[in-house]
């Protein structure tokens, strides 16, 4: 039996997040004026985590190649590793891993930054000065992740495929050229309606949605922080937890819609 208090809190949280998302969307026209802060956020959320994406992306590709190789070599089909790695990365793993990394690094920073402002009366100071915190604080962060999540996903795709190629060659003696040929071949398949490589764009679409999810959840946790340093800790923890849950659940539904 879940107490009603928890149910009410759940809907209040998600209502606030949805409201925040709609309000920030209504302020997208403000982007040109915010260029200075957007570039700053782009730098922090992009360049700041690039090395993590490079490292993790490479190893994810290597793991995928290893697993695909184990399965495929039992039926003598190890030549196909490239197909599996490329599709697995583009469709699922690259956007997912990138979003999780962004939630844990950038999203937690968003929650902590805004949370600190909330508990040190800075948000109230903005309110008293008639300055809209959504324009000033949330909009640049949203734009940064909407751009950076797909960009980093592409980078993750590239290093993942390369890492997988290395494993395919070293462990399963598949020539790198053949591996790459099959990988690119698999990615070239276009969609029914859109004449673009479907799997790549499906992954990028997911990344775009994940970027919005991480920003909105992290910023709303930050904006609603109360209770001093402890509150900032709670807000950060909750931002990362809820972002990861939302990424996984929304991923299922997006996959279902795109590939059914």
């Amino acid at each position, binding site marked *: 039996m879940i107490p009603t208090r928890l149910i009410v809190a759940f809907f209040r949280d998600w209502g606030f997040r949805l409201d925040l998302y709609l309000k920030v969307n209504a302020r997208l026209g403000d982007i040109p004026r915010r260029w200075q802060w957007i570039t700053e956020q782009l730098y922090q959320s992009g360049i700041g985590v690039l090395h993590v994406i490079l490292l993790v992306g490479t190893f994810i590709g290597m793991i995928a190649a290893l697993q695909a190789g184990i399965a495929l070599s039992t039926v003598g089909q190890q030549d196909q590793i490239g197909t599996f790695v490329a599709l697995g990365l583009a469709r699922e793993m690259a956007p997912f891993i990138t979003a999780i990394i962004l939630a844990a690094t950038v999203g937690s920073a968003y929650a902590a930054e805004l949370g600190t402002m909330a508990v*040190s009366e*800075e948000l*109230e*100071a903005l*309110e*008293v*000065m*008639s*300055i809209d915190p959504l*324009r000033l604080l949330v909009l640049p962060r949203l734009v940064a992740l909407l751009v950076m999540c797909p960009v980093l996903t592409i980078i993750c795709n590239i290093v993942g495929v390369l890492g997988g190629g290395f494993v395919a060659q070293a462990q399963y003696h598949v020539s790198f050229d053949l591996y790459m040929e099959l990988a690119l071949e698999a990615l070239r398949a276009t969609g029914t309606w859109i004449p673009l490589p479907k799997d790549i764009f499906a992954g990028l679409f997911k990344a775009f949605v994940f970027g919005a999810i991480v920003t909105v959840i992290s910023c709303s946790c930050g904006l609603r922080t109360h209770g001093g340093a402890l509150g900032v800790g709670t807000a950060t923890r909750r931002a990362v937890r809820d972002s990861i849950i939302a990424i996984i659940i929304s991923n299922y539904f997006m996959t279902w819609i795109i590939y059914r």
Partner: protein
Amino acid sequence: MSSSPIIRFKDVHKSFGSHNILKGLTFDVEKGRTLAIMGPSGTGKSVTLRHIVGLLQPDSGLVEVEGHDMAHIPQAEIAEMRTRMGFVFQSGALINWMTVADNLALPLRENTPLSEDEIARRVSEKLDWVHIADAAHKFPSELSGGMKKRVGLARALINDPDIILYDEPNAGLDPEIATAINRVICELTNNLSVTSIVVEHRIPCVKAVADEVIFLDEGRALLRDTPKNFFSSEHPRLVRFLGDQRDIPTTT
């Protein structure tokens, strides 16, 4: 000079959870006047000021600013009113990721069409007022508590507001700077179009700036008088609060 009150509290009650802070607070301030609020720590002086800018709403009773009921005022109108108000936060409340100069420039950049040159001019003027011009390019984390306080004051004044609320503007300042800040506040409060409320513990400061003083205790305005009468009042609660700082009445 009796004009209608700019700020009016009528039987305001406010509690946080089971904690009753304001219990029927009533007072008003007329245009161009300066009211000082004194009272023990934790009685709700800061809470009172927050009601005036609409950061808090009363549980019951009326808070009126320029004739508007602050609990039922449309969002657009309150935003407009706030551009004519200055609020000096007790903690300074500077935006920690912006330099001092950017902190001061922020309300101008966001809410006015002023050019960057004009903004820079106003920023340096206000920084001069509070004697902190050399800190313009520092971040708040690089400032001392007293310096943050002064930047907070400068920021509150950047719009040349009509209503200024000071939450302990002198706390944590050395006597020399406190005197200088007092002079700034005095000049502003002597300006007949500026209405001010000052929360202040230092008696010389109160005497210097205030037209009237109220004593806030137990959630009410226990006493209200001119500084001269206030500090020589025989009210037993006030006598206890002021202790040896009280003026001994010379008459009688």
